[in-house]
């Protein structure tokens, strides 16, 4: 997309996923190199707020993907967000459907540091309470940046002996951790797992994971590049572009819509 628009793309990320300081260093380096604009997917919300605000006030166009930093969109700042509220509703409807409107669930991966995760959880619980009042949330757990820790959290819940019919995991790390725990306890059939963000595909085919609310990352990237093209050419663009997620299940995993989001040909024309 960038090449089609005549934009040369420099792509990079810190070698450690949790290295927020490294991401800020990259930002400063990109600014110093004189690039025309920045598209960024923040590792965390708050630490990136000041650097992005400073860059935008300096006049450099920025498109923020995936997280609302709380900075008001402007002629130099635009957001591409996953519709986390819609994602929460999708998960709630899926849970309601597979539990037939009755049962007990646990929520893993709650992360107040990421507004998108918080939005998912609130939307999920609101929808559940409103439309499936007989489904109870019996456990809520904070999320971590490490799969083993998430696995341990899930195993602690399974060890409590309390009956749980399903687990909703709000991030790809907590989804993977919960899946490992279910495999470890041999409960992939007994306890349904609804996860967020595409990561483990094979367990969806085998039924180990019931479904995943998937961000349409390919579309988000395309929209981000279109917004950047508009910003660098001083055209008016939407301040916030929301891309709805899609629920990936065993039934639709091989449909063109899903495959397009998962393609490895990220540089190709859709």
């Amino acid at each position, binding site marked *: 997309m960038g090449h089609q628009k005549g934009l040369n*793309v420099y792509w990079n*990320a810190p*070698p450690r996923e949790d290295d927020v300081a490294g991401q800020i260093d990259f930002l400063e380096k990109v600014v110093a190199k004189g690039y025309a604009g920045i598209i960024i997917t923040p590792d965390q919300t708050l630490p990136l707020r000041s650097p992005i605000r400073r860059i935008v006030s300096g006049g450099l166009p920025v498109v923020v993907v995936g997280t609302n930093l709380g900075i008001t969109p402007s002629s130099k700042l635009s957001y591409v967000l996953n519709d986390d509220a819609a994602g929460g509703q999708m998960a709630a409807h899926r849970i309601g459907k597979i539990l037939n409107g009755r049962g007990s669930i646990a929520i893993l991966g709650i992360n107040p540091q990421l507004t998108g995760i918080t939005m998912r959880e609130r939307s999920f619980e609101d929808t559940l309470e409103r439309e499936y009042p007989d489904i109870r949330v019996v456990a809520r757990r904070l999320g971590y*940046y490490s799969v*083993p820790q998430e*696995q341990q959290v899930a195993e602690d819940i399974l060890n409590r002996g309390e009956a749980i019919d399903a687990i909703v995991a709000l991030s790809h790390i907590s989804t993977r951790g919960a899946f490992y725990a279910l495999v*470890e306890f041999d409960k992939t059939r007994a306890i349904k797992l609804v996860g967020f963000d595409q990561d483990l*595909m094979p367990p969806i*085919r085998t039924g180990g994971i019931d479904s995943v609310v998937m961000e349409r990352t390919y579309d988000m990237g395309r929209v981000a590049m279109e917004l950047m093209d508009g910003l660098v050419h001083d055209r008016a663009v939407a301040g916030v572009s929301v891309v709805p997620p899609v629920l990936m299940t065993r039934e639709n995993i091989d449909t063109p819509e899903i495959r397009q989001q998962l393609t*490895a040909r990220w540089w190709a024309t859709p």
Partner: protein
Amino acid sequence: MTQWSRPNPALVIGVVASMAIVTIVLSLRWYSSQTSRQPLYHDSFRLEKQDDWQPFGGAWEIVDGAMRNNSDERGAKLMNGNPNWKDYVIEADVQLLGQYGDAGLIIRASNEEEGVDAYDGYYAGLRDLDNTLILGRAGYGWVEYQARHVVPRVYAQKWYHLKVLAYGCNIVATATSSSGEVTIDAIQEPHCVPSGRFGLKSYQTGGLWRNVRVREATQQDLVKVTGDIQIPLADPDPVVGPTGKPRTDWDPARSATDAQDQYLEPLYLDMRDHHVDPEGQPIANLRALAPGKPAHVTIQGVVTLTFPALFVQDSTGGLAIQNFRSATPPQIGDQVEARGDAELHDFSSVLKDAEVHVLWSHAPIHSMSVTASQAATGSFDAQYVEVEGHLEGKEEGPDHTMVLDLAEDNQSFRAIANGTSGAGSFRQLKNKSRLRLRGICVVDSAYTHDLTPFVILLPSLNDVGILEGPPWWSTGHIVVAVIAFLLLILALQTLHNYIERSRLIAVLEERQRLAHEMHDTLAQSFAGIGFQLQAIRDEIEDRSAIDHELDLASRLVRRSHEEAKRSIAALRPELLESAGLLQALEESARTMVAGGAIQVTTFTSGEASNIPVRISDTLFRIGQEALANAVRHAKPTTLMISLIYGEATLQLLVEDNGKGFVVDADSAGFGIRGMRKRADTISAELQIRSTPGHGTFVQAIAPMPAKLMRTLWPATIWHLFWERRFHGQDTDKNSHQATYR
């Protein structure tokens, strides 16, 4: 007058620049031909030599004859070789240290930076998660072209022989297992990267490399590796990683259990042994142990350093582990459980004879930002910290370590990094730079030698960030700045002289042209008018009535003719150019006194040197004026003209024995003011001394510019300052002398 002929500066600069460009181009071509001809490398890891490896991320060290990356970063690279290398083979024994990652070799790389896939080039590696040999192209992003199953499979902590060949636009990778099975990836890319360096790379796991060899590749090498295989065009579409769409070998007819076994085996591997001992203690609790009584304990934590000792940290503190055993070599970022004998030390505990069990990898490590003063208290002993300081010095330490001496908050401390790689980064660190270091803070005297309160053990030199370079006002920089300033002044002075000389030459040429014009027109006309008047006189018989008018007209014409000739003589500089200053003045004097009884003598002393045009012309005019004044007003019998060449000056003296005059402000007529003005233009000092009845003495002392530049700057600047400061205040009227400048 003879002038020193200076070469044209523009011409000199042009010639020098052309020669420099030609030299640089030839050198580059020679270097390119030398370096691109035959890529050749064999590692010296067994000799513990680091060669010229350049790290981009990772924590690299040489262990048992192999290069090891202890970090599980996404895309740590170690680069070597020449960007001009084209067709070559790189091969090495490669081992993955952990699960869920890949390790391999880079070929034809350029534009490397720290970061994920931050280079342009090709990479082939072994990935244990989906048990494949992968081959693809990085260009600040990753395009995976092929991922083939490795037979029997990819195991961590087992050696594989990996070979990557680039010939033309064919990129081929082979992996040979210890049992001899060979897996081949091969692609042909129409718009391939034509040349570049080689490197070692791992992704989300540590790795080991040994026997790294690079040699030139030929067509025969390509055929030998690929055999009858038709090398396919690079097409990323069929490639599926563990997170992509189904692989082409997916068999939907398989049972769910089989499918799970097929795909989830790596996941099971990843999940194994995650159970921990519930009796594990927080590390901070070990500080409550009884002194001198080791206790057998279990702790869990994240590995923060592996060299020179294993350091582990949990949310309560950190500790060092000595003499440990582990089935899997722990890497930085591994969550481990360790059981051993804990000993209480001054500021933290040490675990000895420990069994270390890796629970999982990729645990986040967060450094705590502390000041040097805080670190010096010992409260952060054995913990992963971030501290800032100014670099005071650096040196190579024992066991291939690199040592940095730093200071901050009135505290001095040291940082020690494993020097196996990163010599280039080490050399780039400049004293007085402000650095940010991330590493393990230790206060043990085994590291500090009781010289500093604490030492920072760095996982690698990549953990040193330069916040600010050294201040510009260092002694060396000030000296350079002063020299540059002086050179600039010199250049400006030279340029000014050049422009001034050009302007003067233009003036002289214009004067000469005017003289020629006057000679050819005005003087000739006067001569013609005189001739015509004489003719009139000869032809008229009764001239009594007009004789007086004719005589008057003839005298006027003759006088005007003489004036014109004097003006022409004054304007023409040929004599000055051809005969020199003294002789020109002598000639001028003899012309003035022609037919009279005045005796003209000349005198010169000192070593005659080239006189700049500006000075010789000005002194000539001053001398002419002095001579003219003497001839017109003083009625002398002798005229003495002297020219004295000094070390830094040139003196002109015109002396007569005429009637003299009282030198005061009123006597400074137009002629004297003119001389003074001319003297000022060349910063010359003009003195006129005269006493009634005892002649007049005119002296002009001009500084010589070349010597002024070389040796007399300070004196001249002081002299000028003094002259300006007290200009006009040192006239002593009673002595009948005056100094005019």
